[in-house]
């Protein structure tokens, strides 16, 4: 592992060195025509750059405040001030494309010719279906060399999204369907299986603040299937202006992620009152928002959103309520200092319980999450040589999660010990003889502080442009929740080894420091050929100077080359890394409970006695844990079709060899059993135990609960996106997207198992103890998934009718998975002293005794296990291949003058839910289940 890391570092250093050489060479080439001008003089010489002043008005001649202006392909940005003015300084001479975007307005795209200081005025038109350009699908972002998908407001409206989870359906390769608001939804990009590292390593950045999950802590043993990552349901869709999804290699500005990045921009700017109501049988969603000009004191945006959902309207056993309130204030402190301050409130309540029509027996679960977040961002136009724009971000988020579960603890066997011991020892424990109602509560209080400073500056030299970003970040995550506890500790909700209380506030906070630098290099070789290179480095250090410190260097390189006017090639390679959160670094203690005395005379209740031995192992921290890293490689092409369409084709591979998972590590302890001979029994008196006189003494092997980097994943595939362009006579555009995806996951954890009970005498098997642990080769078993699907979107937009309709058909041509379990010979065993021994091929006919010693011949006087009997063979290794399925949905949006509009949709509009078999069973299984739904949305602009 160390060698590999060292190799990776050397590998990246070589790439960086090569790049710097190439940059130098490029600079050298560029300097040749004017060899006397060195780099410094070129930048300093104002004669080569000019000032571009823009004034942007809306169609009522009111200045647009906070309009986002970008000069492409320079990649420089500016925002309009309270007078609607935006200024670009140091713009090199040439023809550039100005792109201005504004909430509720059609994007303005104009060519401007800069050959001196210029002042230009533009008017933006209100977004409307009456305009020819309407985009209701996801778009491949043109400017980036990495694979970015951009989803604008019109697409979100047309989709009738309720939360960010809905929006993700527009990404190539995603399966169409309904998003159930009553189930948590995390972000899974480019993977065919829900992977905890992938979800935990997906970053959602809302208005510049990453939503951190590092402070979340769970109670009990680590679970690889527990929910991780950001719950996308918590982000309401109505206040989103646009979403950018970076499936490929993101900018070095973004980190602490492995699988992908979602950047959400909320609405900002002056808007009319906007009221929306979405209604389906499963949910209702209402929102009200407004962008208010505060005369000369900035712009105030606010949005209130409420959503309520039921899993199944016929049986209201699940519900979800969400309240979002967002207030944003933009203000120019000075002409050069723009600030943006936001306060957000979110409350989400999940409830599961008895149907209101059924008998309420007191069982329910309620998960309430309340979060407050405060953010302040500033952008100072310093206009210094190496500090053109200095921006800073400060964010603070506080989350209050209370998870209450109330249900009957079943007691099928008539004796349920109530074990509450927190230390190792023998304890006389109370017990229950019947089921009982119990309530368990988990109080989680994660908090996150985020500070960031970013410096951006550009260097232009002849035909090359370089936009640099350097920055520093600091994250602090903590959790001061009470943790897990029971409403009544004598009636625990989980009366087993996973049910001990745990105070999250005892867990130390996490400090994380990041530094990054990035160069966006562009070389306009000639009118046709252009080379863009994005080179970035990001350094992450978590818990520096502590026993669990981790660090990683994440270099990344994206490049694109315009081969012809219509064909651009692009490729990239980069490493993303995700720091482990509190849950991984500080796992819960492990508890093991074994009965020592079970004496229950039925005619002498006073003498009844139940004694348990509790063994506690506190792993304290996962010391060897490293950051999970994903190496992303991708390459592809973008082609423009002569009639206005375009084609995008991309190959990718994401490899995460060190995701988070259990790291098997054993400890042993002795546990005694006492029969009546060891008890002091006096009729009518409490029974006592002579602890020095056990009738049985077992050596028990238990795992420590350590977490490690034992989960490996490879995702690879091909994504395609084709816009066939508009067929004008029928106002219709055809979009075809698709993806072939491949996912393979396996564990590199130590592969051990207890000796099978069939090979052991009942004195071992019934007591659930093993004389030794058998070691098998690890990494041979895997889960593999393959899928190929296509999505055809037919969008008909009739401006005269102010109407857009879309029909989407998706076909899953190929859906294959294989849970492969390899035949395995044992390669070793771990004896009672935790010493590992190898098994060689010549030992397969020998024996291992209950004493954990190998014998070439069957030992006398003790039970033994034939080594060859420890071989594991599996015969049911047939991959599952599902038949072709398809699904169709339709959506319609119609504007009603300037007042507002109406949208309707039907998912699975042909109600195609067939019963189909697959290749390994003749059992008919229903497909497309739960994909049928319909709903309507009414929106008003007042």
């Amino acid at each position, binding site marked *: 592992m160390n060698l590999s890391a060292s190799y990776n570092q050397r590998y990246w250093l070589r790439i960086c060195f090569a790049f710097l050489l190439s940059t130098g060479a490029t600079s050298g080439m560029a300097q040749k025509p004017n060899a006397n001008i060195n780099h410094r003089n070129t930048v300093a010489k104002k004669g080569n750059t000019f000032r571009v002043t823009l004034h942007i008005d809306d169609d009522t001649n009111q200045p647009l405040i906070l309009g986002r202006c970008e000069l492409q392909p320079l990649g420089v940005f500016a925002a309009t001030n309270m007078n609607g003015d935006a200024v670009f300084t140091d713009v090199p001479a040439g023809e550039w494309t100005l792109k201005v975007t504004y909430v509720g307005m059609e994007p303005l795209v104009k060519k401007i010719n800069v050959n001196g200081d210029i002042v230009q005025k533009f008017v933006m038109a209100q977004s409307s279906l009456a305009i020819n350009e309407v985009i209701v699908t996801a778009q491949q972002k043109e400017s980036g060399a990495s694979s970015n998908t951009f989803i604008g407001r019109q697409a979100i409206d047309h989709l009738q999204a309720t939360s960010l989870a809905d929006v993700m359906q527009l990404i190539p390769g995603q399966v169409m369907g309904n998003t159930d608001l009553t189930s948590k939804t995390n972000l899974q990009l480019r993977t065919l299986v829900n992977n905890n590292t992938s979800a935990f390593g997906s970053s959602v950045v809302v208005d510049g603040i990453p939503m951190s999950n590092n402070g979340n802590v769970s109670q009990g043993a680590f679970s690889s299937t527990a929910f991780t990552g950001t719950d996308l349901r918590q982000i309401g869709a109505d206040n989103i202006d646009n979403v950018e999804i970076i499936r490929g290699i993101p900018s070095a500005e973004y980190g602490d992620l492995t699988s992908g990045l979602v950047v959400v921009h909320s609405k900002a700017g002056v808007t009319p009152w906007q009221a929306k109501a979405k209604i389906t049988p499963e949910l209702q969603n209402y929102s009200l928002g407004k962008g208010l000009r505060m005369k000369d004191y900035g712009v105030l945006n606010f949005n209130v959103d409420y959503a309520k959902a039921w899993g199944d309207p016929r049986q209201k056993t699940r519900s979800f309520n969400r309240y979002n309130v967002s207030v944003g204030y933009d203000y120019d402190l000075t002409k050069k200092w723009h600030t943006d301050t936001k306060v957000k409130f979110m409350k989400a309540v999940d409830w599961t319980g008895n149907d209101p029509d059924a008998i309420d027996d007191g069982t329910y679960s309620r998960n309430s999450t309340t979060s407050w977040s405060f953010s302040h961002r500033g952008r100072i136009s310093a206009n210094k040589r190496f500090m053109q724009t200095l921006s800073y971000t400060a964010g603070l988020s506080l989350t209050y999660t209370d998870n209450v579960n109330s249900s009957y603890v079943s007691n099928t*066997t*008539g*004796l349920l010990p109530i074990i509450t011991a927190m230390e190792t020892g023998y304890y006389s424990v109370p017990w229950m003889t*019947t089921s009982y109602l119990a309530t368990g509560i988990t109080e989680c209080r994660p908090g996150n502080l985020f500070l960031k400073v970013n410096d951006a500056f550009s260097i232009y030299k002849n035909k090359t442009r370089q936009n640099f970003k350097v920055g520093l970040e600091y994250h602090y995550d903590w959790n001061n929740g009470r943790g897990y506890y029971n409403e009544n500790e004598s009636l625990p909700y989980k009366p087993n080894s996973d049910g001990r209380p745990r105070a999250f506030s005892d867990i130390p906070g996490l400090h994380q420091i990041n530094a990054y630098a990035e160069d966006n290099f562009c070389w306009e070789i000639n009118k046709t050929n252009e080379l863009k290179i994005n080179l970035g480095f990001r350094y992450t250090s978590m818990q520096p100077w502590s026993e669990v410190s981790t660090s990683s260097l994440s270099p990344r390189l994206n490049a694109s080359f315009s081969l012809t006017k219509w064909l651009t090639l692009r490729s990239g390679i980069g490493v993303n890394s995700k720091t482990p959160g509190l849950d991984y670094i500080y796992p819960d203690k492990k508890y093991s409970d074994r009965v020592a005395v079970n004496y229950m005379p039925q005619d002498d209740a006073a003498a009844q006695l139940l004694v348990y031995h509790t063994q506690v192992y506190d792993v304290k921290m996962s010391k060897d844990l490293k950051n999970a890293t994903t190496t992303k490689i991708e390459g592809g092409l973008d082609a423009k079709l002569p009639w206005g369409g375009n084609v995008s084709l991309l190959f990718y591979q994401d490899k995460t060899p060190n995701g988070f998972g259990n790291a098997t590590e054993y400890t042993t302890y002795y546990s005694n059993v006492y029969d009546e001979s060891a008890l002091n029994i006096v009729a009518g008196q409490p029974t006592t135990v002579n602890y020095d006189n056990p009738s049985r003494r077992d050596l028990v092997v238990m795992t420590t609960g350590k977490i490690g980097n034992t989960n490996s994943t490879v995702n690879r595939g091909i994504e395609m996106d084709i816009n066939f362009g508009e067929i004008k006579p029928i106002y219709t555009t055809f979009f075809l997207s698709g993806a072939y995806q491949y996912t393979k996951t396996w564990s590199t954890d130590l592969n051990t198992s207890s000796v099978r009970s069939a090979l052991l005498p009942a004195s071992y*098997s019934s007591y659930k103890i093993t004389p030794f642990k058998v070691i098998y080769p690890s990494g041979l078993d895997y889960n593999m998934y393959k899928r190929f699907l296509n999505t055809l979107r037919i969008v008909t937009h009739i401006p005269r009718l102010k109407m857009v309709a879309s029909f989407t058909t998706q076909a899953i041509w190929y859906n294959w998975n294989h849970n492969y379990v390899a035949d395995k010979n044992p390669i070793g065993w771990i004896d009672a002293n935790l010493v590992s021994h190898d098994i060689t091929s010549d030992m397969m006919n020998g024996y291992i005794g209950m004493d954990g010693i190998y014998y070439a011949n069957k030992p006398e006087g003790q039970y033994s296990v034939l080594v060859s009997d420890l071989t*594991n063979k599996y015969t049911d290794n047939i991959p599952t291949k599902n038949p072709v399925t398809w699904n169709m949905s339709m959506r319609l949006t119609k504007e009603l003058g300037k007042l507002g509009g109406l949208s309707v949709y039907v998912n699975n509009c042909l109600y195609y839910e067939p019963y189909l078999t697959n290749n390994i069973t003749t059992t008919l299984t229903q497909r497309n289940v739960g994909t049928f739904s319909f709903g309507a949305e009414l929106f008003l602009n007042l």
Partner: protein
Amino acid sequence: MNKKIFHTILTCQMAFTLTGCCNFDDATHEVSVIVQLQQPEDCVSDVSLEGKTVSIINGGQVTSVVTDASGKALFHNIIPDMYDISTSWSISADEYHSATNNQDAVSGAMIAGSVNSCLISGEGTIQLKTNLSANRDIVIGKVYYAGSRDKNNRNYLAGKYIELYNQSDDTIDVSGMYIGLTEAESTIAYTLDNIHTAFADSVVLLKQIYRIPAGSPYMVAPGGTVVICNSAIDHTTNDDYENDLTDADFEVKDVTGKYQNNPSTPAMEMIYQIYNGTSVMNLVQSGPMGVVIFRTDDDVASWQKVYPYGKTAGNQWVLCPVRHILDGMEALRNSSSGIDVKTKRLNDKIDAGYTYINATSGWNGETVYRKTMKRAADGHKILVDTNNSSNDFNVSQSIKPREYDE
């Protein structure tokens, strides 16, 4: 006009032609069937097959006919379908000696035959094989495997038990007798066909084996019972369908601290069990569930164990030779789609039929118990034992331990 008449005639003609093509003779008709009893295989001389009752059962409806002198039972007006066919009758000790040339002391014997899920599709004769079995002293009298729901309507399975019954005229020592529970996987490990192929019907797969302690005699009087349970406590506090088992004869001692162990109740010896971390009897509440009792001097723990048929890994079951088995009974799962007789684990020599509880998933307090045939001279009950649980067992929610029908 002519055209109209022509079209009308043509249409009528076509209708007549098509109607004429229909053959209504292929509709289902009632049929007559003869069931011919065969002489028992183990007899050296013929026994009388005249006057024996043969029953055919379909969907709970029983039709019975008495055989003629040649052992034929003629059933009239039978609707073609799948039927279970069975017969049984008892013979005296003298008849047994005469038929078998075996002079062992027995109280009598049963001759029985059955075939499950037999397709009757038309007229014909069905040959019904019969077996002869001497009346056994100790039989499996009752099994409570369904479990119940406690006062909070939660599942409760601690009160399960097996009851043995001595229907002989003598006091019997049951010490050293083995109780075996048959393999009960949802995907059957060895079908009867597999056992036939691999072991010529000579074995039964057992998942758990217990033994009544062999150290000292444990005598059971005629009509006496032996209750073997997982927890010898009063379970009626949890549910009214449950029983007070504080006077159980034996308790399987739990070693995991999840069942109350009653120190007053002697412990069963655990010989083998397939499960890791449990010691109690695993009587699957929904079925399938099979129990055999056997005696042997072999070292049972060293009997051969097998993986599922055709596999070389997974769980392993003990192969119990049929020749040691004294009695066996089998309850199958009563699923919503009916009972799948292909899930039977015991061959016809041990249990030619099956019983079942009414609930599909258990948890309703039902007990399967042996019917009462008659009373012996000393007044103790003789239970029905035809080697066919379909005939021998009843199901009840109210029957209590050590009780049988009058």
